[in-house]
């Protein structure tokens, strides 16, 4: 599947901003099931960018705008090819056996097994984990699926109940939240169970072939990947209570939201507020005919 994505963020400053320094993590990732064919970051006011790969391998675009400006528009435009997954087969592993290697995993996957800013191992988190804790005979992959379904069932999707800076404790206390909160909570539980789990920020393409236009702050979608025995990093979408599929476009990975905000910046101004609005357009494109590529096993017929 080929998708054209345009993610536009607009800032309006009551008093003009200046000395603005920013980092964008908006370039879709490269991987076995996803290829970023084209990417461009358009800025208004125009500004040069520099790139580097951060600690988790996310491509960061840095840019600065020094002169006073009343608005800032950041448009991330990409063309992404999404290939169906052919994951390696799962290796059934009961927890009793799995946890024997826990100390080894704690060294190789430390960041994704321990608490982080939005995923504290707090009293409420531990209690919640305990409610549905795995049995030593339970299969690791099955457990992961069970938890994802459990959380989808127990909590309500509702914007406005939590804030951008909320930790997983918040959704536990108010009973609902947005995709970010669902992801953080699920990550917390799986990590407490000893399964390395990481946060994924990205987009959810429309089910139908029509263009989707989302207006509002929730343009990005959040989900997680758990490292399951034999299967490697496996994506789950707890907000929708399912595993990830072709509609999920991966943009950045990290311990939690704080590692992967699409845009992070600081600026100066003489007071006044900053108003932000976001627009996301995802358009599935018909697959263009391509020369035969024998190494590309997912070379499908055109989608309608």
């Amino acid at each position: 599947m080929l998708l054209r994505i345009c993610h536009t963020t607009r800032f309006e400053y009551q008093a003009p901003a200046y000395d603005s320094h920013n980092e964008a993590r908006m370039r879709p990732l490269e991987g076995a099931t996803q290829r970023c064919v084209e990417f461009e970051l358009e800025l208004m006011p125009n500004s040069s960018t520099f790139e580097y790969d951060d600690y988790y391998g996310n491509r960061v675009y840095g840019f600065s705008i020094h002169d006073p400006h009343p608005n800032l528009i950041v448009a991330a435009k990409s063309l992404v090819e999404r290939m169906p997954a052919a994951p390696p087969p799962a290796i059934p592993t009961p927890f009793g056996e799995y946890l024997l290697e826990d100390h080894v995993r704690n060294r190789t996957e430390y960041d994704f097994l321990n608490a982080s800013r939005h995923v504290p191992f707090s009293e409420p988190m531990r209690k919640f984990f305990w409610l549905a804790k795995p049995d030593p005979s339970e299969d690791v992959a099955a457990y992961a699926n069970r938890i994802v379904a459990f959380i989808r069932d127990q909590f309500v999707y509702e914007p406005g109940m939590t804030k951008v800076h909320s930790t997983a404790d918040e959704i536990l206390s108010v009973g609902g939240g947005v995709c970010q909160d669902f992801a953080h909570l699920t990550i917390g539980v799986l990590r407490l169970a000893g399964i390395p789990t990481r946060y994924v920020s990205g987009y959810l393409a429309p089910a139908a072939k029509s263009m989707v236009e989302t207006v509002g702050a929730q343009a990005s979608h959040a989900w997680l990947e758990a490292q399951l025995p034999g299967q490697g990093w496996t994506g789950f979408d707890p907000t929708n209570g399912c595993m990830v599929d072709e509609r999920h476009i991966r943009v950045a990975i990290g311990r939690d939201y704080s590692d992967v905000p699409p845009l992070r910046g600081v600026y100066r101004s003489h007071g006044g507020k900053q108003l932000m609005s976001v627009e996301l357009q995802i358009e599935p494109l018909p697959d263009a005919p391509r020369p035969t590529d024998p190494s590309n096993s997912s070379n499908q017929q055109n989608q309608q």
Partner: protein
Amino acid sequence: MPDWAAYKPDANVFDEMMDLSSQPRDGCAGVIDTMFSMPPAQFTEICARADRMFRRMGVTFNVYGAADGSERIFPFDPIPRVIDASTWATLEAGLIQRVRALNAFVADVYGEGCVLSDGVVPRDLVLGCPQFRRAAVGIKPPLGNFVTVAGIDLVRGADGRFYVLEDNVRTPSGVSYVIENRVVMTRLVPTLMRASRVRSVERYPADLLQCLMEMSPSGKSNPTIALLTPGPFNSAFFEHVFLSQQMGIELVEGVDLVCVDRKLYMKDVHGLRQIDVLYRRIDDDFLDPLVFRPDSLLGVAGLTAVLRAGNAAIANGVGTGVADDKAVYAYTPAMIRYYLAEEPILPIVETYLLRDPEVREQVLKNLERYVVKPTGASGGYGVVIGPKASEQELAETRERIINDPSAFIAQPVIALSVHPTIIHNGSESGMRLMPRHIDFRPFVLLGAKPRVLAGGLTRVALREGSLIVNSSQGGGSKDTWVLEA
């Protein structure tokens, strides 16, 4: 004179000036002969002169409290601490060895990570260290030096051996007191000092400047260096002013800086002036609001990008705190062997990592016998000294350890060495000579090559029996005399 005969070395601690039969130790005879035959009036005069000199020089620590304009002088004891040449030779070699290994460790941890993959230091220990800065991975400083200035805290045990108590490789302070103490002592006892053949400390600012210039990325012949201070309300501000003046470099605050096109500049009246090397005396957390704490006004946004682009260097580098973590400290002898293929010259204090359940159980059984330290803190803060703690303190400490074991380490109590110190009290002469615990912080510079200041800050715990030597917690200092061979 202060009652010499009444001063008796204790058998349980190492007295720095004389042995158990009251014979002066190597190098101390001169000081004892001269200073301890002084009548009380002369000592009083010396102490008063020292105080006046410090005030005039403005050697204060803190404080512009709102209405109160007065400032405190770091208490000074006029009896110098002497280190003879051969003892110093060992210390110097050990310090150089140690700092080279620490620097190699930091560079490795933010680079290839071989020390972690080879299992020399547990990976999870480093990754779990709050001072491990993921944003520093990929920054390649000039000369590979993350550490440029180190202050290594040493103590002397009952066996007379020097042990490393703690490393300070983030923003170690105190060297200005070393230099000012020497200025004062030179005026108080000039003849004695000349006769003792004391090695000079006055070259330190020149040596530091040299190291900073060697850190310049552009290979310019005359790089622009600046010292970044949090400002006049910081307790070490005097030192920031002192060093910047002695080195002849600009003293800047966050508001003076701006990053443009991934280069670092200061705001001069005639325009922007590029900075090549920044000697920063602010913590990582405040360095770059884009990457670290966004509410920081002490640093400058975009600095990390400048460093990554190689357009400026900072001393010390981002993330050096991973090397002065107290749990990582337990692995420093292994680091020395790993990076230098040498045996450590300076031993560390035996350290028990409480993250290990068996070790933890053992320590908790006899908590009153240990010193417990939080791994991430520096200085004396948060330290609980078992034998001196109350029942309640011990119980609270036990709680804290159980709640977060990796945040603590334990060490046996070291009977720190003592040094004869003037204690002002209500006796006839107004003063007595009493043994007080001391420690020692020498300073090591790493530029193109390592240099050790021939001296250091000897801190003395002025309260009887106290082992806490920090300035803000009742400590004072002495001049340290390293003798020529």
